[in-house]
Structure formats: C-alpha cells, structure tokens
C-alpha cells in the first residue's frame, strides 16, 4: 500500500509541475530563438558589449534549462518524464538542478510538495531497508539450519549482502552508464555515488544527451536503482556506526 501511495504521490507531483512549467518554458525558448535570429541578421562586426549581453542572456536561459539546440531529451524538458524525474530528485533530496521551477507557482508547489514528500520518502526507505534486513537474516537462519554454523552464518550473510550491494549499486551501474551515456567508468562511478548519497550536484545527469536513443526500460530501472541503492546505503552507514561501538 505504501508503495502505491508513494508512486501515486510522485505521479501527481509530476503532473502538476508539468502543467505549471511547460508554458513558461515554451515561451522562454521562443524568446531566445527570436533574439538569436536577430543577432544573426545584423551580422557585421559584433561589438564586445553586445556579445556579452547576448551571452548573459544565453546563460540565464541555460540556467533555467533552455538551450539553443532545438532538441532536448525528455528528461531535460518539463514534460511528464522530465517532471517525474524532477519529483524524484526533490523528495529524495538529491536535487540535481538541471531542471528547476522558474514560475512562482511552480516554486511554491515545489516547497509544499517536498514538505510532505520527504517524510514519505524516509518512511519508504526505512521500510525497504527493513525488508532487506529481514531477507538477509532469513538467509542467515537458513544457513544456520543447513550447516550448523551458529554465529558465523550471520556474519557471513552480512558480508555477503554488503558485497552484493556494493556490486549491484555502485560497481555495476557505471558499466551501464558508460554504455548508455557515453561516460567513462570513473565518471559513472562518481555519478552513482553522488546520486546515492543524495548529494546530487547535477554536473552529470542521466538521460540528458539528445544524440542518444534511450530504451524505454532505462528510466524505470534507474528509478528503482536509486530507491534501493539509497536504502542499501542507509543500512551500510548504520552498520558502520554499529562497528564504531
């Protein structure tokens, strides 16, 4: 039930944001294009200040997510998948920033949305973590019954879970990224870590390359990865602090 509520919440946020942001974005894009053609019309000997003003305008527009190139990927616009991705990044507190609301209504909604979404997200992560822990302990108990190892089984299972998690969430995804995004392995690893720790700079974001064709399962897999990876990382940190004792 909780999962359904969570997904529904994300979807609602995405829809509202899309409705709020898309018109403003389209308008900004049109304005920028108009300016660009005006500049191209008065070709002769551009002066420094005029160029600077133009660049300033370009950068301002870019910071709100609008570029000169006509095509952006679906994650880089405020259509449904883009807004969905933004909602995820907001309530998991990752906050990439490649897309950010520029209308006043969008911002106010973002605040309210996050106010309720973040506790919801925490509850969900807690649940996932507990389920994972449950699974690990279940396997440990099975091992104990089969091999009669007692304490060792639990320890073994925990290391096993740690290694599996490491592989699944931090070491293997960069390979996927290097194939789909064209990043190097290091960049993929950097991206994975920055995302799972919810720091989320936004210098690398998946799905932003307009020349790449992304398969349809890509975004869903990534969302799942983020969710489970964050829960796993929370467990690991808890283990570390346990060890501190």
């Amino acid at each position, binding site marked *: 039930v909780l999962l359904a509520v969570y997904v529904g919440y994300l979807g609602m946020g995405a829809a509202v944001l899309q409705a709020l942001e898309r018109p403003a974005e389209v308008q900004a894009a049109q304005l920028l294009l108009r300016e660009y053609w005006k500049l191209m019309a008065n070709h002769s000997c551009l002066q420094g200040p005029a160029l600077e003003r133009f660049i300033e305008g*370009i950068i301002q527009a870019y910071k709100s997510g609008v570029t000169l190139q006509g095509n952006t990927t679906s994650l880089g616009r405020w259509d449904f998948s883009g807004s969905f991705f933004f909602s995820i990044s907001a309530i998991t507190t990752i906050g990439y920033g490649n897309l950010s609301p520029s209308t006043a209504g969008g911002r106010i909604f973002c605040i309210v949305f996050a106010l309720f979404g973040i506790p919801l997200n925490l509850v969900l992560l807690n649940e996932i973590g507990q389920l994972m822990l449950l699974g690990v302990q279940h396997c440990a108990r099975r091992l104990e019954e089969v091999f009669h190892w007692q304490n060792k089984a639990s320890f073994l299972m925990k290391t096993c879970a740690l290694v599996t998690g490491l592989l699944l969430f931090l070491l293997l995804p960069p390979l996927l990224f290097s194939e789909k995004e064209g990043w190097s392995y290091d960049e993929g690893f950097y991206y994975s870590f920055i995302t799972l720790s919810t720091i989320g700079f936004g210098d690398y974001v998946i799905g932003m390359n307009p020349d790449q064709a992304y398969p349809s399962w890509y975004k869903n897999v990534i969302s799942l990865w983020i969710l489970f990876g964050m*829960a796993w990382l929370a467990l690991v940190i808890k283990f570390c602090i*346990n060890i501190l004792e």
Partner: protein
Amino acid sequence: MLQSLAGSSCVRLVEQHRSAWCFALLVLGYLLYLVFGAVVFSSVELPYEDLLRQELGKLKQRFLEDHACLSEQQLEQFLVRVLEASNYGVSVLSNASGNWNWDFTSSLFFASTVLSTTGYGHTVPLSDGGKAFCIIYSVIGIPFTLLFLTAVVQRIIVYVTRRPVLYFHIRWGFSKQVVAIIHAMVLGFVTVSCFFLIPAAIFSVLEDDWNFLESFYFCFISLSTIGLGDYVPGEGYNQKFRELYKIGITCYLLMGLIAMLVVLETFCELHELKKFRKLFYVKKDKEEDQVHIMEHDQLSFSSISDQAASMKDDQKANEPFVNSQSPTSNDSSLNN
C-alpha cells in the same frame, strides 16, 4: 521515543562519553574536518580553474579578433563552450571575473554543502583528483556529520524541549500531552520564523535580484538539503564582502539543519504521532516501544535509530519475527 533513541548506537556512543570535554572535542574535530576539506579542495581545484579561465579568455579574444561576418557554426561552437563552462560555474563575462569558485571560503561553503548532502552543483570538482577526493571525503564525512548532528541535537533537545515541558507540567498542572503539543507548535512557529522568514528577508535585501519568494524558496530548498542550485547566494556580480558572506551562509545552513532536526525530534516525541506511524510498520518484533524517528534530511538518520535498536535485540534474542500489522497489538506494546 526515548527508548528507541536510547537504543540507537549513536546516542549510546555519545552517552558513554558524556563529559563536556569529549563533546567539545567532537565539535572541534568536526570544524577541523570542514576546514581540512576546504583546504584540500582549494589547493586541488584552484589551479585547474585558473587554467580553464585562461583558455576561455583566449577563446574569446580570438573570437573578437576575427569579427567580421561570423558564421553560424563559429558562434554555435563558441556558445557550446560557454555553456559547458557555465555548467561548471566559470563565467566569461568581464564583470564576473572577480568571483573565484575555489578560494578558501567558497571551498568551505562547498565542503559544508557536500557533507550536509545538499550539493548545489553551482561549483563542482573539475579535476579527476577533485572528484575522487570528493567521494572519499563524503564516505567518511557523512557518517561523521550524522554522529555530530545526533550529539548536538541530543544536547539541545534537553534544554529546549524536555525541561520546559516538564516545568510547565509540574508548575501549571496541565497534562503532559497538552503541554507537549502547545510547546511543539510554539517551537515550530519560532523556528520557521527564525530560520525561514527572517533569513529570507535578509537574503532578499542582500541579493540584487532576489525577491522575498525566491529567498524563501532558497531557504527551504537548502535546509531540506535538496539543494537544486538554481539560487545560490554570494554569486552575484560585485558581491560585497564575499568571503564573510560565504562563511555566514555556511553557518546559517548548519544551524538551520540543527534547528530542523530539533523541531522534528520534538514533534516525534508527541505521543499522538506514535500511533499514526505504527500503521506503516511491516513487522513488529519486540515488546518495547520502537518508534520511527522521521528526521527529514539525513537519509540514514531515521533508519539508524530504528534499525540499530532492532539489530541489537535481534542479536540478543534471535527469535523469529512476529508479523503483526494490527494496531491493537501495537497499542498494547505502546502502553508498556
């Protein structure tokens, strides 16, 4: 709430070394850690940024020299480079050349945003060494931050919540519930005005083109550690006293984070909320009260206190779990 907090390993670690000495040491250690990070970032990134700036400057010169009738491709190429650079926070505009991204105070600001997992992205580590260091720094730093915040919040909450509530309960004779609720509301209100409304007003004055809503938006996005990065203070052109300003912002963010945690802890101690949260539990495996602490930002903070308690009991007891979703069994354990 108290039992689960007591069960958390963080708090136990803290309570073992209760003396003010150790606490001061922890605070000092944390501050030193931040400073250390800032120094390393600054020394690693500043030369690289310098280089990038020079390259961009040369590019611009060349562009201005072959002025006449620029072709579309040339302009596009130039702009692509400009945008790439602005992604990293380096601007080619002449009146922005005074804003270095990796001087000491900016690096300090950056380190604090990394450790609080806010991560604006207005400046990012450019070199490979910087990126690798960033990862290692946060792997060690984020648990450290959690430990630090737990310790601080524990101290503060004694003075801010438990003593006043007890005082009013004894002095005025109201039931503890009522006093707790009123106190929580008052605390929430005071915190919101102190850490959201007043700073928003201050920012809207100090920053040139921020109105009140944008400043409030910034305060919220930062204190919830989302950190989108579309608004970052201190990045405006010709910002006066930039270094002091950055340090001030760093302090504000840290204190705001602590305040948020204190308020949330206070709310979580309200008896009523416990029953509501029980509905979300999948399993219930022990007699004593296990309450989920909904800290809003640190991703593992909630799971730490809760699961550490369950871990400890599991190791001791080693008995099978009882899947109980009915509120009645939860209530009976609550009343213990």
